[in-house]
């Protein structure tokens, strides 16, 4: 068994006094693994990712990331843990007052990389995701698909140990979706564990990786589907 970098044990959550979104969810994330999280709208896929990127504290259970109990960890150590995770947010969360290249190079800058180097790296990555002509553009002027690609570039620029992507192909066509998934595969091959939420059946068929299905408030491991031609 390879190294476990993420561990959820009996995790459950509910917003305020609302219904339980999920309960008793337990699974491991191994180093270099690739998983899809599937489930219908409102099944709690995004909330589960939020818990994993430390944007939400679950009501029940325990979450361990990179050997640290996220409930016990000192607040000052949280950024160090987050620096090991790359996140593609469902709403992109690009900063509107920054240009695309500034947005993408931001994770490098917060890690202390100098501006020149971070710009060079971000420029190359944006070129690769097809946004080479949008470096100086501001997010509000981009289409949904372009925002999506910029958000992905920002999430992977630091080559994180764990990549969490919330519906990363939701706003792009199939060709671009496949291209982005190939990028995630490349990243995965270099050792990054990837966890993607999606309900795109074509993607699931084309990229036959293990699926964690959220159904009726709990998680099921589904068998690997046969790769579509």
């Amino acid at each position, binding site marked *: 068994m390879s190294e476990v970098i993420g561990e959820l044990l009996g995790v459950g959550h509910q917003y305020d006094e609302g219904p339980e979104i999920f309960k008793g969810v337990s699974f491991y994330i191994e180093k270099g693994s690739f998983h899809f999280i599937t489930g219908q709208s409102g099944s709690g896929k995004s909330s589960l990712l939020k818990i994993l990127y430390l944007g939400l504290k679950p009501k029940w259970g325990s979450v361990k990331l990179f050997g640290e109990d996220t409930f016990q960890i000192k607040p000052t150590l949280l*950024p*160090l843990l987050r620096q090991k995770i790359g*996140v593609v947010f469902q709403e992109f969360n690009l*900063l509107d007052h920054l*240009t695309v290249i*500034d947005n993408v190079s931001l*994770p490098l800058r917060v890690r202390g990389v100098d*501006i020149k180097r971070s710009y060079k790296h971000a420029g190359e990555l944006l070129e690769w995701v097809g946004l080479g002509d949008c470096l100086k553009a501001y997010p509000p002027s981009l289409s949904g698909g372009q925002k999506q690609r910029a958000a992905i570039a920002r999430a992977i620029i630091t080559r994180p140990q764990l990549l969490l992507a919330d519906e990363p192909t939701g706003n792009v066509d199939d060709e671009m979706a496949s291209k982005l998934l190939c990028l995630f595969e490349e990243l995965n091959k270099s050792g990054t564990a990837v966890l993607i939420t999606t309900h795109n059946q074509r993607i699931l068929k084309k990229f036959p990786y293990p699926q964690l299905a959220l159904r009726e408030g709990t998680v099921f491991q589904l068998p690997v589907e046969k790769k579509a031609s």
Partner: protein
Amino acid sequence: MNKDQDLPLRNDIAARFVPKIIILMVYLGTLCSTFTFFMIHSTLLWEEKLTTQLSIEIPFFSDTSSNDLQTQVTDLLQKTPGINKIEVVSKADMETLFHSLLGEDTSVDKFSLPAIVDVSLNKRDTFDVENLETRLKNISPLIQLIDHRLWQSQVSNLLFTSTSLALLLTFLILCSTLVTTFFTTRTSLLIHRKIVEVLSLIGATPSYIAKQFQRNTFKQGLFASSIGAFLAFLTFLGIYFLFEKAGHTFVVTTSFFFEALAIFILTPFITSFFMMLSARRAVMKALCS
């Protein structure tokens, strides 16, 4: 791209009114601290000139006994331990004093003026004034001993109180500036909550986020407090010329002038430095709790 632009702090609502408050605070604070230094300076200057602690009045007699009394008194003073210096006030000094009080035409010879002996004491020794007074009364019961130390200490206390109050006021103004900065930063954090959240989620440390606020606060503080200090300097010059024009002496020595100048130059830097620390404290407190 500047490193301090991850947060759009320059367009804050807070940025519109904070500089105006800082200008006012620094203006008042600078004037107050200049006044404090002026008081300290004047007090030291005054105390330096105060050499006479006791004065002895020897009454005037028409015969030669006045001179004898003066000789006996000076002999006694010279033999008394704890006395640093004795000086008989000259006729010329008496004339100067009288002319300033009664006019230039007044002749001192018309008055039966007592002889005055000024006594300076050794500051380190304790001096028995009552004993000296008894011995002087033994020479002549009409001899008067005046102890200046009583009113001198009263004036010193008054000056010390005024200086302390001015210092306290300066400190309170600085505190108000820092409190204003603290709560403005907290408001700014709330305004940019979403961006701060994104920065945190992509791994920015509270210190990184705090630095953005620090740089912005320092720049804003330096700009606003420079204006405040400059206005205070103009006010200071205005007061100086007003006093000069009105014929009042406004004791501005060269050393005080340089001290005042240093206050006007350093205040913007000191204020903005403390404002920067206040902004950092506000961010760190909010993000690390």
